[in-house]
Structure formats: structure tokens, C-alpha cells
């Protein structure tokens, strides 16, 4: 008997608990970002949707310009612009039903506004009057979240809670390419997959985390390739193709709603403006790179498609621009009014009931304010 034959007798079985539970293949993203505009699929897109997206993109672009202008006038403390990323911002808001929840990052005021929150309220944080300017329950929009990626577990928990309560609610959470490096990103995706929570994670890969380019952030083939490691599908989409983003996010939302669990969507886009108005992007990138991306502008792409299909004419384009101007003018005017702030708010919402310690401090500030007032009256 040969050694080989002998060995036949004890050929080990696979480790008993080893069962690959998921087929990895369908979880992997395609090699190229998904696109609709400029492909045959575009002809099949709903014309009404294209027009709505277009109007929203144009308005979004104008909103970004207006908000940036407001920082120059001292009406906003700081503004992180989404110029160039409007397709993602708008699509994220439009794919959701009223009962769904949006979890924006600090950059995503445009998505918040597109979801229906009053723009003045949405800008409250960046204006410096208060931390959150809107009631999260009114439009089901979580507070703008500054500590990166920390809102992702919130989205998972909320979606999980809704499912436990039997409510048909999906949460869509937004994060940047830089944010994917944080531990909270990892933990949130893992919880979501284990719990099969109805969540969609939208990573806007805009090429930079402040000054740090993607190549210093990850060595992965794509950020969407992270999904398989959690057992959820990863999708890669051209983030400047509003129709494609809308479709991919819409599919993910429907998948989640149907009980299929979470999806990770990476939208490849570009931050055209500096990180914020306070940033100087020339320190870390050249104009040439920005220019290439301007040619891949989300508004341009959609406008060409609409024109090509005869779905819009010059009047239509003008109308969209006009609507955006009206929107911006209203915002400008309302932001010019000084907010009325009550310093006593400092203590009002720390706890349901102020502690005795806080009541003492409250009394101190009240006395100081009264003294100030008296001084002013004298």
C-alpha cells in the first residue's frame, strides 16, 4: 500500500463548523463604476425623474455658491461645499420615503435641504447659533454629524429599532472616503450585516479628506470592496451621474425595505471646492486635476442627456436656473437677519431637569445678564 493509499483512510473532513454562509461573488462590486448617462440605459430612464433631478442639481449648485458667499459676508461661520457632489446629495434625499431616515455627515447640508428641511434651519450649526437647527423628527433627518463616521452606528441602531417595532423604515447614512478609515465605520457595517438592519451606507468618495488624497487613505481596489468583508453587497457608482446614483441607491433602499439587509454604495465623485471656505486647496492639489473633473460635472452630464433626448430646451434650462436664483435670494435675505439667541439656553437642555449644580450656574449667568442689562440701561 502506498503512502497515498494509506492516507485515504484518515483524510480529514472539513472542520465541522466550517460552512461558508454566503456566496461572496454577488457581494463584490463591478470593476467599473455603474453609469446610466451616456449609455443605452439612459433612454429607458423616466423623463420626469430626469427633469426633477436636473432642477434639484441646478438648485443645489446655486445653494452651494450662496452658502459659500455667506461665509464671506460673515453670515456663516464656515461652509463645507458640495459643489461637484450635487448628484449624490440630491439622489440620497430623493430615494427616501417620508417615513425613512437620513443620517448626514457634516458636509451634507444639501441633502438635508433636498429632503425638505428649511435651509436656514439646516445651516444653523454652520452659522453658529446652535448645534442643530431643526427638529430631527419633523423630517426624519438626524443632526448633521461632525465626528466622522460616528453617525453610522446611529443609523444602524435606528433602522434595527424600527424593524423590531415592525415599522417599514429604511435609514440612509452618508459618510466620506476619509470617514471609512474610522473604527466606527467598521463597527457600524458589521452590526448592520449581523442584524440584517435596513440601512444603506453611501460613501461619497470625493477624492480627499481635507488635504489627504484617497491613495493615502486606502489601498483597496475600491471602497465598495469593503462590503464583502461584512457580508453585504458593495456597489460602485459614478457619483456624478445623478441617474445612476438614484438607481443604485433606490435599489439598495428597496432591497433593505424588503428585508434583504444593508448595502454599501461607493459613489465616485470629486470635491470641486476647497474642503471649506477656510481651506486653501492649492496647497495640496493642482488646477489641472480639478479641471478634468469639471468636464465630468454632474449638471453638465445630465443637461446633455436631457438635451439629447429633447427632454429640455433652453427655456427649461433657464427656468431651472431662475428657480435656483429665487431659492438663493430667499436664503440670502433670511440669513441676513440676526438670529435671536437666549444665553440662558446654555442650561436649558443639558438634562430633562437641570441638576442643582446647573441651577446654581444658571442663577449666576442670569444675575450677570441682569447686571449687564442694568449697566446698559443706565
Amino acid at each position, binding site marked *: 500500500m502506498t503512502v497515498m493509499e494509506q492516507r485515504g483512510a484518515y483524510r480529514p473532513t472539513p472542520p465541522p463548523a466550517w460552512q461558508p454562509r454566503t456566496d461572496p461573488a454577488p457581494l463584490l462590486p463591478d470593476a467599473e463604476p455603474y453609469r446610466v448617462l451616456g449609455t443605452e440605459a439612459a433612454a429607458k430612464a423616466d423623463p420626469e425623474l430626469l427633469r426633477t433631478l436636473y432642477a434639484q442639481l441646478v438648485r443645489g449648485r446655486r445653494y452651494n455658491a450662496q452658502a459659500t458667499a455667506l461665509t464671506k459676508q460673515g453670515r456663516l461661520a464656515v461652509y463645507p461645499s458640495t459643489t461637484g457632489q450635487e448628484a449624490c446629495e440630491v439622489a440620497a434625499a430623493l430615494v427616501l420615503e417620508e417615513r425613512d431616515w437620513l443620517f448626514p455627515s457634516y458636509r451634507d447640508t444639501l441633502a438635508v435641504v433636498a429632503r425638505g428641511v428649511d435651509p436656514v434651519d439646516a445651516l444653523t450649526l454652520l452659522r453658529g447659533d446652535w448645534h442643530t437647527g431643526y427638529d430631527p423628527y419633523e423630517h426624519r433627518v438626524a443632526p448633521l454629524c461632525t465626528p466622522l463616521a460616528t453617525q453610522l452606528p446611529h443609523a444602524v441602531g435606528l433602522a434595527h429599532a424600527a424593524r423590531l*417595532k415592525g415599522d417599514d423604515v429604511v435609514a440612509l447614512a452618508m459618510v466620506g472616503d476619509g470617514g471609512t478609515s474610522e473604527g466606527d465605520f467598521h463597527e457600524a457595517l458589521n452590526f448592520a450585516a449581523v442584524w440584517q438592519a435596513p440601512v444603506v451606507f453611501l460613501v461619497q468618495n470625493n477624492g480627499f479628506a481635507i488635504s489627504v488624497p484617497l491613495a493615502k487613505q486606502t489601498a483597496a481596489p475600491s471602497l465598495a470592496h469593503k462590503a464583502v468583508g461584512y457580508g453585504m453587497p458593495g456597489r460602485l457608482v459614478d457619483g456624478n451621474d445623478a441617474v445612476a446614483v438614484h438607481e443604485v441607491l433606490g435599489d439598495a433602499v428597496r432591497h433593505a425595505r424588503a428585508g434583504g439587509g444593508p448595502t454599501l454604495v461607493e459613489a465616485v465623485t470629486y470635491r470641486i471646492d476647497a474642503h471649506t471656505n477656510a481651506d486653501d486647496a492649492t496647497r495640496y492639489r493642482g488646477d489641472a486635476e480639478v479641471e478634468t473633473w469639471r468636464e465630468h460635472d454632474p449638471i453638465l452630464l445630465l443637461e446633455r442627456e436631457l438635451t439629447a433626448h429633447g427632454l429640455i430646451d433652453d427655456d427649461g434650462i433657464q427656468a431651472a436656473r431662475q428657480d435656483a436664483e429665487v431659492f438663493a435670494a430667499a436664503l440670502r435675505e433670511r440669513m441676513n437677519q440676526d438670529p435671536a439667541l437666549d444665553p440662558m439656553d446654555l442650561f436649558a437642555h443639558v438634562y430633562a431637569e437641570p441638576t442643582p449644580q446647573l441651577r446654581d450656574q444658571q442663577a449666576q449667568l442670569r444675575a450677570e445678564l441682569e447686571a449687564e442689562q442694568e449697566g446698559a440701561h443706565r
Partner: protein
Amino acid sequence: MTTVALKPATMAQALTRALRDAMAADPSVHVMGEDVGTLGGVFRVTDGLAKEFGEDRCTDTPLAEAGILGTAVGMAMYGLRPVVEMQFDAFAYPAFEQLVSHVSRMRNRTRGTMPLPVTIRVPYGGGIGGVEHHSDSSEAYYMATPGLHVVTPATVADAYGLLRAAIASDDPVVFLEPKRLYWSKDSWNPEEPTPVEPIGRAVVRRSGRSATLITYGPSVPVCMEAAEAARAEGWDLEVVDLRSLVPFDDETVCASVRRTGRAVVVHESGTFGGPGGEIAARVTERCFHYLEAPVLRVAGFDVPYPPPMLERHHLPGVDRILDAVGRLQWEAES
């Protein structure tokens, strides 16, 4: 006065009972953490809850503390009342950002529209012979974080009452469970459990006239013992059990110190930057002219928590407390 016979129970059992009663009373109460489901927790505090209420109400989570607390935040946003277990004190640190930047601030951030009724149970302190990272007293971190309540029971009855109160609170509560008291027993009637009282009241555990020992959690029994031993030295010590570090019951503490004129703060947590500094400072601010001596502190040394074989040298014990009482300038009296 109750006529039902009191049965001895451990603090761990009282905590289990509090969780069970809270879950039975309110379907929005959810327990979650590492090993809390099938196993019933490494200290068995969640024993039986998954069986009685199902795994959706008492959930074994993946092993990630920031994820546990972060998802609990989301659950609370949707109207649930999560009760989170951090397996040991030092393993709550990964959740620190979620705790400080979100749990403690969400109500304030949203002008009161989005309160977070999350209870965070943290077994804490030493004295159980635990290896590294299993005996930290981390209350100083929580006290320095506005927006959190911080409570800790020292008796079986308080374990029940305070945990019910914590879960009932509309604000986040860090609920510190003294590990070495888990198996402490007390007569307590589980059929007529202690009523839930609002958080924030200290209690005088022992009246005395000579000096006040201000303490909480695992150090309460040590102080009671010290007070007994002090009788031999002619001191009649009062012992105040804070129960709640935030809010702080200045009233009860200062009333005691004004009566006795002397005070020692006792806790396991390190001395420098520990809770005792705050307590001594605020007592002094309020009772300066009543004090015969500075408020002294007997607390852990300012070292990483030592290995089991050395912990007895680290923990504040009866002798060290009596030494401090002896330094309260009794000459001034005569």
C-alpha cells in the same frame, strides 16, 4: 413597615430583578452587550432575560463597544430605552467618543427634541483579584462629562432602586456597579422591591458627631467598618453614601459636614484628578467656616491598577481611613 419576611439576596440578583421588572413594565426597554444573552453576562446579571423576553429584547452583540453604544444611540433615537452592558470598566473606553460626543450631548444639541434615555451599566472597581484592565475606577471621566448622570449603588436595595430609576430616566445614566459587591448579601424582599426614587439623593448610612466620611459604591462597606473601628479611638464617625455623583447632593453632604466640622472623602479611584478633588473643593467652598481641618482624601494611589497580588496595598482600607481621620487636627478641639 412590611410584614413579608425579608430574604437575603445578592446585589447581582437585585440588579437582575431590576432589569426584569423594567423589561416587563416597559416593552421599549432593551438589554444589549457582549455575552448578555445566552450566557447571562459574565457576572450573570442578565441571567434569564433572553429566555424570558427573547433575543430581540436581550441581545448578544458583536464584540465592539463603540458599536454597542453607537447602535444604542440610534435605538434610543427611535424611542427605545437601551440598557447597555460594558463587560468591564476598561472595556468601556472604546465607546468613549460615542459617550462624550453623542450620548451626553444629543439632548442639548437638539434643543431637547431628541433625548437619549440610555442606561450604561459598567462593572467597576477592584478587589476581585482581576488581571490588568479588569479593575479600573473610571468615574472621574464620567463626572467630567456634562449631560450624563453618574450613579452607583452600595447596597442590595439601592442596586434595585437606582437601576430602576436609571432606566426610567429620560437622560443617559452611567450606572457603575461595584464588582466586589456583586455577591454581597442583604435582607431584601424581592416581592416588594424598593420604590424607584429620582436619582440624586445621598443618604447617611451611619450617624456620628466627630467627622464625616463621604464615600460611595465599593468604599461604603469599608467606611462602615472604619467607623466601627474608630469607636475604639473615641471617634464617632458619620458615613454619607453619595449614591449619585451626578447630580451631586450638596445638601445632604454639607449638612453632615457642618454638623461634624471634619470630613474625609474615600474612594478607590486615583487621588489626583479623581472624584475626591471635586468633592473636597465643593464642600470647602460651602462649609469653609465650619471646618476644623481641611477635607482630606483617602483614595487609590495615582498608579495603573496593580496586579492582584498587590491590590491590597492600593485599595483604601480601614487603617488608611483611620490614619486620615487622625490627621483632622483634633488638637484644635481641645
